[in-house]
Every structure is written in structure tokens, then in C-alpha cells.
């Protein structure tokens, strides 16, 4: 990707590429940190039930209803998003062990105003691995790199960001456009200056300073010689990754700022939580408030973004494959996931990166409209996708499902218009590939030099979902 493309991208986000550099370190930072935008893919592992938060429905009439719901008694329309709002015993809340984790109505009335909902997304699969793959990379059949990896890879062409792609999701294929990283936790002091081995400022390292400097100088010459001898694909791939990774090592000391960052105070979030969940989420679990605890894995990711050492990240939470006791188990899983999405939106604002942050929230697929014999719900290829980010108009829904949670089509010439499923003229079902095509465009991934290797399925006609 050309540098001017990224400048354009920064323009799209309404930003200049303002990085947290000091004048003296600018030259180095220019090569090793990234000032945004960032991309976070959160995945609900196992297949969530959109009818419990963003595509609410009531049991349909009849002896064998096309859709069954033993929990929801009312659905409220929030800017076109059907949100379950009541149960027979009171307000609809997503609970774990009785404790209210999330209030979908409040969610879409507050942080959800920045979130665009795609309803009636046809994953074309009932298979976990295929669903995970399709939502992460946009292709059910070909294991393309995850969109998060593609975006980090595109940025990596510009800058050697040390942990460009922070991989903690279920699907982290990179196609070798970038290496995947895992957060190293308490190893950071050792790795920030590896040849010092954690020695204090006035202590001797493992090798002398002269040795450390000369080793790195000679390493470059050595790699050039090795590269000249490299002819076969495996060597090319791993040596290329090694070289890229070497260049990114300079900024690893920035990890220190992530590792030593202060845990946010729950009081800074309290007013932004639903009155119905506030007491539960602010209550301490050990030394930490429940909401802070839920957000902990996302906190690391957001701080890596803020420090400029990561470009994109994947995150996954399990517990959604509710083949038994669906209402209880699904509500618990969804409650913690939506609370985490809320955490991301609120915390990103606190860290000053909200207007540079793209967030995509997906799941393998949806759940069947009816219960099985174990009060569970099985695999259903229709689902929903949440999307937020700079330039994306949130607080609305694109696409719909019918009363039996079957996908309706959208008019490819006017995506706000919903058409019956049988209308195969201008009507198209929304597929993951179409969302990915749009995100590739918005993130300028479609301009990356390697993108030709990773085509999205040509069978899916493009839809201007983010036009």
C-alpha cells in the first residue's frame, strides 16, 4: 500500500496521523509505531442468538410456531433495531447466575448509537469452523488471512510495528502478510532489552553494550547473505518473517507502558452503565470491580493500540454453543460479551482512540428459532454482525429477518430497502464476504500489494453496505 493511501485513510477517519512521538524519537517512532486507525475483531465463539439482543422476536402463533422464545415478552424498536425489552417478570436483562450483566435496551440507546447492526446475515453454514472462518476472513471455502491480519499486514508494509497483529481470537490466519503476536505479560521487562536480561540500570547485562550493538549490526549483514542464498518457499517465508520481526524489535520497550499502565477506576464508568446493571457490575470481585474484570483482556489490547505497538487484534469469548438450557446459558454468554463491547467503546474514548477504532463483533452463526428437547437451540445459518468505527454511521440496522428468523434480502441498489427472500432480482442476502469487501475498502486493505492473492468469493455480488 502506498503511504498516501494511509494518509487518505487517516483523512477518512477525520484525523491526521498524530502519533505520540517526541521530536527526538520521531525518526525511530516513525518506523515502529502506529497512530491509528485500529481494528478489533471480537468473536462470540459457538454461535450467538441475535434474537436475544439486536434482532428481538416474540413467539409466533400456532401449535408449531416458526419462532419460539420462552423469555422475551416485548420487543422495542431502537432506531430500527429490534431489541428485546421485557420478560414475564420484568425488564429484559442478560444475566449470569441471576446477576444482571447487560441491558440490551440501554446498550443500544447509549454506546450502541455508534454501532451499525447487520441483521439477517446469511453465514451459509452450520459448521463452527466454517462460520468462524467465514466471519473472520470473508470466505467460507478458502482459508484467507483474517481481516485483522490483512489490515496489520498492510500497515506492516509501512512500519515495523512490534505486535502489529495481536492474535487472541479463534481464527488468526495471516497468509504470511504479518506475524501474529501474543501479549507477553510479565516477561516484558526481560524482552524490552533482551541482551540486558532484566539487569537494572547500573548493572551489567548478559553481554557488554559493545557486544549487543555489534551483534545487531552483524545480524543485518548476515541476513542479507542468507537472503541471497534463499531459493525455496519455506526459507523465503520464515526468513522474511524473521527479518520483519527483527525490524520491529526496536519498539518493544514501548510494551513497558502497556504493562505498567494503571487499571482504570470503576467510578469513571459507573455513570455510563445501565441503572439496572450498575450495582452488579461495579461490585468488587476480589480487588476488582466486575466490569473492570470483564474488560481486562480488552484493556491490554486497547493499551497496545494506544501505545502504537499494535494495529489490529482478534478476541474471542466462548460459551455460546447453547445446545442445552439455551435461555440461561446464552444470556450469560451474551451478557458478558455485550458488557465487554460496552467496555471497549467507553474505554477507547477514555484512552483517546475511539475515533480511530474499528470494532467488528461476530459469531459463528445464529441459533435455531425453536428449542430442542433439552431446551437448547441448535445451529442456524442466519446471524447478525455489529460494526463501529470512524465514518460508520451507527444506531441503525441494515437487513432484517422475518418472524421465523429467516433472512430477508436487501435491495442492492438501495440497501435500506428490505425485500422478501424470494425476490432474487435486485434482492441479495447479506453474506460475510460482502461485509468484508466493504471493510477491506474502508480500511484500504484492498490497496495492499498482496491483496490479489486473497480474493473474496466472486460468487457474491458486492453490496454497498458502508457507502
Amino acid at each position, binding site marked *: 500500500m502506498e503511504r498516501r493511501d494511509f494518509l487518505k485513510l487517516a483523512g477518512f477517519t477525520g484525523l491526521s496521523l498524530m502519533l505520540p512521538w517526541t521530536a527526538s524519537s520521531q525518526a525511530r517512532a516513525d518506523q515502529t509505531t502506529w497512530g491509528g486507525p485500529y481494528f478489533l475483531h471480537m468473536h462470540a465463539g459457538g454461535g450467538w442468538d441475535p434474537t436475544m439482543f439486536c434482532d428481538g422476536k416474540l413467539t409466533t402463533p400456532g401449535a408449531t410456531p416458526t419462532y419460539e422464545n420462552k423469555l422475551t415478552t416485548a420487543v422495542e424498536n431502537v432506531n430500527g433495531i429490534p431489541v428485546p425489552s421485557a420478560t414475564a417478570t420484568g425488564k429484559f436483562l442478560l444475566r449470569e447466575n441471576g446477576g444482571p450483566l447487560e441491558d440490551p435496551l440501554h446498550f443500544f440507546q447509549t454506546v450502541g448509537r455508534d454501532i451499525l447492526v447487520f441483521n439477517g446475515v446469511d453465514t451459509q453454514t452450520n459448521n463452527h469452523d466454517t462460520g468462524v472462518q467465514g466471519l473472520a476472513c470473508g470466505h467460507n471455502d478458502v482459508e484467507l488471512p483474517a481481516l485483522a491480519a490483512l489490515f496489520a499486514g498492510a500497515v506492516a508494509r509501512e512500519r515495523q510495528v512490534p505486535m502489529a497483529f495481536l492474535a487472541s481470537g479463534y481464527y488468526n490466519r495471516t497468509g504470511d502478510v504479518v506475524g501474529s503476536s501474543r501479549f507477553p505479560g510479565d*516477561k516484558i521487562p526481560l524482552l524490552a532489552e533482551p541482551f540486558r536480561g532484566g539487569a537494572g540500570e547500573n548493572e551489567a547485562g548478559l553481554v557488554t553494550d559493545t557486544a549487543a550493538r555489534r551483534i545487531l549490526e552483524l545480524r543485518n549483514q548476515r541476513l542479507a547473505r542468507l537472503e541471497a542464498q534463499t531459493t525455496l518457499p519455506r526459507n523465503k517465508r520464515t*526468513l522474511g518473517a524473521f527479518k520483519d520481526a527483527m525490524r520491529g524489535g526496536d519498539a518493544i520497550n514501548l510494551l513497558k507502558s502497556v504493562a505498567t499502565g494503571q487499571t482504570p477506576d470503576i467510578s469513571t464508568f459507573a455513570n455510563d452503565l445501565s441503572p439496572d446493571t450498575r450495582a452488579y457490575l461495579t461490585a468488587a470481585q476480589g480487588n476488582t470491580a466486575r466490569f473492570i474484570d470483564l474488560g481486562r483482556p480488552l484493556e491490554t489490547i486497547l493499551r497496545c493500540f494506544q501505545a502504537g505497538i499494535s494495529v489490529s487484534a482478534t478476541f474471542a469469548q466462548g460459551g455460546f454453543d447453547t445446545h442445552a438450557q439455551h435461555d440461561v446459558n446464552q444470556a450469560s454468554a451474551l451478557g458478558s460479551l455485550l458488557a465487554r463491547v460496552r467496555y471497549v467503546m467507553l474505554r477507547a474514548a477514555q484512552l483517546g482512540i475511539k475515533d480511530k477504532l474499528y470494532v467488528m463483533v461476530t459469531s459463528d452463526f445464529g441459533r435455531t428459532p425453536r428449542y430442542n428437547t433439552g431446551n437448547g437451540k441448535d445451529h442456524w445459518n442466519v446471524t447478525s454482525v455489529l460494526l463501529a468505527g470512524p465514518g460508520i454511521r451507527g444506531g441503525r440496522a441494515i437487513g432484517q429477518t422475518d418472524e421465523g428468523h429467516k433472512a430477508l434480502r436487501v435491495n442492492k441498489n438501495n440497501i435500506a430497502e428490505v425485500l422478501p427472500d424470494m425476490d432474487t432480482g435486485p434482492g441479495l442476502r447479506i453474506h460475510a464476504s460482502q461485509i468484508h469487501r466493504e471493510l477491506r475498502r474502508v480500511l484500504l486493505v484492498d490497496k495492499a500489494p498482496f491483496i490479489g492473492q486473497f480474493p473474496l468469493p466472486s460468487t457474491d455480488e458486492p453490496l454497498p453496505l458502508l457507502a
Partner: protein
Amino acid sequence: MRNAGTFATISSSKALSVFVLATCTALAGSSAGCSSEEESGGEGSACVSTREFFTTQVYGKAMATCAGCHTPGGVADQQGAKFKMYKETYPDFVSANMASIRSYAELEVKDTPVILLKPLGQREHGGGAVLAKDSDEYRILEKFVTDLRAGVEKTCDAGDQLQVEYLDNVQTARKAAITLAGRVPTPEEEGSVESEEGLDAFIVKVTREELFYDRLREIWNDALLTERGVDSGNVAGTFDMAPELYDDQVPGYTTEKRNWTSVSLTEEPMRFIEYVVRNDLPFSDVVAGNYVVANPFVAKAYGLPHDKPLAAEAYLEWKRIEFSPVQNQIRNNNARLTPVPTAGVLSTPAFLNRWETTPTNKGRKRARIVLKNFLATDIFKFASRPVDSTALTSVQNPTSNSAMCSVCHKVIDPIAGGFRGFSEQNLTRFEPDDKWHDDMLPPGFNTTQMPPQNYGNAVMWLGAQIPQDSRFGVSIAQVMYRGIVGDEPLTFPQDVEAKDYQDRVRAFNLQNDWFVKVGARFSANKFDLRRLVVDIVKSPYFRASVGDTNKDGLHDGLGQGRLLTPEMLGRKYRATTGLYFFQNDAASKDETRQRDGYLRSDFRNDRDWRLVYGGIDSGDTTKRTDTMSPIMVATSQYTGALVACRSAAYDFTKPQGDRRLFKFVEMTTTPFTPRQNTSVPLVAVPDAEAKIRENIKYLFWRLLGERVETGSAEVTDAYTLFVDVWKDLEQTDLTKDGGAKGIPNGRCRAETDWDKGVTFAPDQNGNLRATFPPLRDRPDKAPYEPGMELTIDENFTVRSWQAVMTYLLTDYRFTHE
């Protein structure tokens, strides 16, 4: 050397060696014959075998349309069409399709094969006319069918298939020893592998070594992921034979017993595999062995006898026990003992818990894992096709009655039935009389239904069927390939527009055929895993080192430079320097590591270090990272520097003949004569540079497997590093009046004799601490003698060598093989 038989004989003696594959396929059911035309495509000429012609021209082009309906579960299949095609995700789909076409081509009308009439829309072809008679596609099909009917099947002398250079035998032996058994060959062994027989024998030898069994368990855990862990309370509690293992209210209970029982039950599947290989049993026992492999903890939990005490020291006493595990069950106040069927790893609690099931999953997850790892079938890719559940709401029991679902379910559901009897709630509890699911296809395997009399021990019946399927051999070869080579097997190329599509198809075909052949040989060798390891190590995928840089498509899957896993990197440190990477303690009282002297490799023992370096925990993280990230480079720099620092100093405490690293120099071998003051010019020491260069050359081979000359740029760079560091230290020492001779970092001094073995003694808190014998004190001003502690570097050479060692241990060629 050209060779037309097997590539078990890739020769090292020629720069250009060859890769021979396209011979008979031995997969049962394939009728591809050997009595065929063979062309010896000379250098540069393009010999196209019948199989390759089928793949690129017939399957990829002429019959591309046919596959849409004639694949299992497709429209044609549902309507009873006799002709079937198999997608590339079907194991050895080339043989399967050629057999199908050959068979169908025998059917003719007025001397014309029906297979040539149907595509024209004749003979009531359900799909109508899909090819025009004057089209290229039809002509391709016509030629192919005609050739097949005439018995013409062309193979190629594969000399021109892959024009690459290979590691020679010594290099191959070194790589095999390091990656499989965590050691380097001795000079005598290097001499013994010049012949092919010698190399074969050497590879077999390393598969009998202790650390190979560690590697074997790692390879299989990467596939089965059973080491995620089980708790003895759940498992042993289900068996209810020895409550002292898990119930703290029972006399005799200890936390130690509970923990060791949990570890033992977790490791049971991998220890089963190890036992089978260690005792030269057929590898088919891994699924078909109707016995238990147990240590005292597992035996106790299962209610079985074991002749060793229930103590941590007996942890490694895994032995074969012929009796069934027994579960104590109480029903209607009647206690009874229920024997549990055993089928290798499939019936182990760790497997059953790792691949859990539910009343609606009905064992299918377990069946998927069986298919993937023991039958080379990835059911998720078996029939890639859009699924629209919303169209199925009117279909009763769609997994059986909708082709959209049944295409996979008719494969997976019968195998899932092999797990009948194991509880869908408790996972480990076995109840032989439990009902199975009427809405599924009955238990069975392929087209064979399980006899009802086997329902009470279904998993044993299933386990017995698996090795009889030719896919078993291919599957085991693929799992071992992933572990030994480090890559996934190639997948069929999808991008037909790619410039190198033909090359990629050819690469896939060559590898696919190789898997079939090696798998068949493994089966014919009575499932001898050691012979399979030999085949993989001697294959191009392990040995190819140089090729045409413009042939990436054809050479996909080839090359050196596999990123070592954290466990392998840890072993390589020890193999080459004598020390593992350990952060604090060099050993710990871990009875699972008795045979390795209780030595601690933090790249194996420490989950955090493993994960930072791209490893797995078998639960949340199940896929290894296969290329370096900046964090991993930083990790390897830290661990490499630490190992270099420790091992360089320690090596100099030994007599020169006993050293691993510094066989050509002494600590007194300085490049220049140390000066009295900085105004005196440096004077080179005669012969010192030659000795230092010779030692660097030796280290390049020992550490990196690289043969270099003493005058090469590689040696010169390392020598320059040595000299620069030496000069800097000498200069600093002079400016400090001799005050810079001590080795300042405590971890870089040699004070402990690690080779003398560890003892454990309780510390003041009662915790067992590892203690190694100390090196002898060095009296003040006494000349250094071997065996003394090394804390003073009066010649500045120890720290200079530590720098060179750090340079080499953090090199790409050290972290990759």
C-alpha cells in the same frame, strides 16, 4: 542420482537429486496400474503423467461442471446417478476419481462409453448438455477416457518433477537428531550415515532415544490436544474405585495423590502412544488396542492392579494392563461393577473430556477428531457448500434426510455411534445399556453397520475398523509429517487464475501421491512408526535445501527454515551447549522428568514462556505460530543470550577434550597480547587468530549446521565480533586499573557443575530445592584449572566468546531448522 523406485533413497552425493513419486499408488480401491507407459522426460521437457493430466485438465477443466452434481450428496447422487466424483478434500481424490471414471467408462452404448454421451445431453443425462462436442473440454475428456479404456496410463520418470538440491546424509542426520531427539550426532555417527543403510539405521536409532518420546507426545498432542487437562475428582470420581485419590474426607487422601492422579489421567493418551512405539507394537493399537496403559495412579483410579507403589517416584511406570477399567455404579441401591471398553486412546477419559459431547452433539465432535487424525478426512472441508438452514424447516430430521446435511452426516454419524455408551452428561461414565439416538444413522463405519451385539463395546468395534481403512496409514503419515516437517500438507490450489496454478497442482499431486505411498508402506510394515519416520525424514519435504527461486508454486512445501517450537528450541539449546534455557532453577522435582535428570527447560515447563514463543496450551491456544513475530525474536534473543552466557563460561571449566563448544581454544587464546597501558600498540598473538577462527568454524557447524571455511565472510564477521568485544574489555580494564576482569553478571559466571547431576533437599520452608555440586573454589591469584569456578575473566576471552555464542544462538539458522 536418478532413481525410479522410491524416494527413500534420495542420495546426498549428487548436487541435483531427484524426487520420484509417480509410480503405483497402493491405496486400496485404486486400480491405477503400473503396467503403463513411462516417459523419461529429460531435463526441461514436460512429461505429463495420466494422474497429472486428470488433475489439471480433466478435473480442473473438462469435468469441472460435473463435480457440481456428481459429488457425494450432490443432485446427481441424490437422484441415484451411478457415476460419482470426489472433491479434492476427499483423501487421495485423484485415485478415487480415476477408479470411478475407469469403472463407469466400461459402460457403453454402441461401442461408445456412456461417460462420453452423458455430457452431450444424451442417455437422459439429468444435467442436460454440459459440453459441446467440438469443445476443448470434450476433446480432453474423450482423450482421457479413451486412454483409460485402452489401459494407457502414463507415468513420468520424475527426475524433472522437482529439480532441487537436498541436504546430504550428514546434514540430514544432524537435523533429524536435533529435531527428533534433542541431540547432535557424534563424529562416529556422522561417519556411519554416509550410506543409505547407515542413515536409515541412524534415524531408527534416534527414535529409540528418550527425548524422541517427548517429541512424539508433543506431535500427537498437537493433533489430539488431550493435555488440556482433566481433574481426578471428575474422572476418578466417576470410576469410584479409589476415593482416596480425590476425596479429602477419606482416610489416605493427600493433595499430592490427587495432583498426580490428575497429571496421570491427563497424560494417559500420550503415554499410550509412547508405550506403543517404545515397545514396537503396531501403531494401530493407538485406536485398536484393547488394553490399558497405566501408571500406578491411573491403575488405582481404574480399579486395576499395578505392581509399583502409588508414589510420585513411580509416575513413569506406565505398563500394559489387559483388564478393563472398572466403574463402580449404584442403581436402585444395587452396587455393581461395570467394565469399560478400551480402544487405545479413544476410550481414555482425557480424550472423552477433551472432545466432549452433549445430548444434541451426540458424539459428533469425537467422530470429527477421529476422522481428521486417524482417517485423513477433514469433515469440515469434506463437502464445502453453502448451507441454508432456513430452507430446511420443513424437513424432518435434516441431518439424515436433507442432502445439504447428510453429505457429511452420513460419514460422521456412524462413527459418532462408536462412542455410544459414554455418558453425554458425565462424559467418562460408561453405561453399556444406554440407548443411542434413533434420529441418526446407526453406528458403523463407512458402509458397514455395527453388529448389534457390539453395541455394549462399540468403541472397541470402531477402533478395530479404523486401521483396516487405507486412510489410516495416510492419516498417521500426515500427523507425523506436520510434526516432523512443521507444515500442513498442501491443499488443492483454489485460484485457477494464478500464473503458477499448474505448478501448484503438480506440487499438490506429488505430495498427495507421496502421502498415499508412504501411508501404504506404513500399513504394509505392520504400522511400524519408526519406518514411517525414516520415510518422512528422507523425503524432499524434510531435505530440500536449494531450488529454482522462480518455481515457488512447484516447490510449495519445500525448503529448510522451519521455525522450531519452544520445546524443540529448548532441546536444541541443550543438545548444542549442554544447557536448557531456564530462568531460575536448572532443575525441579518433577517426577515426569526423571529420565531427563529432572532438568528444567522453561520452554517446556513454563506455560507462559511456551505461549510467548508461539506454543500452545491445548485449550485456549491450540495452533502453533510458524513464523517469528517481534516478540518472539526478542524472546529468542533473551533466552539465547542467557544460554550463551551460562554455557560459554561453564564450557571453559572443563578440560579441552571434554568441552562441547571450545575445542580449539583456551581461555588464554587471546587475539592480541594484553597491554600494560593504552599507549602501547596491540600486538597480535601468533596462531591465535587461526585457532579462534577454527573454533568459530566448528561452532557454525555445531550450532547452525552450516559448513563454512575459516576465511569465509561468516567466520570473519564472528571473528570481528570477538576481537571488537575483546578490545573493548581490554581497553576498559586498562582505564580502570585492572578493575574490569570480573564477570559482572552473576548468571554469566560458572559456579555450578551442572553435568554432575541434581540432588534435592528441603529449604527452610520445607520446599524441595534443586542443588548441583559447586565448582571448586579458585584461590586468589591461583592459575585456573579445570573444575574451578569461573568468575574472573582475566584474559577477556570468556566474555568475548559469550558474545560470539550469543550471536550464533540468536541466529535465524539456530531458531529455524
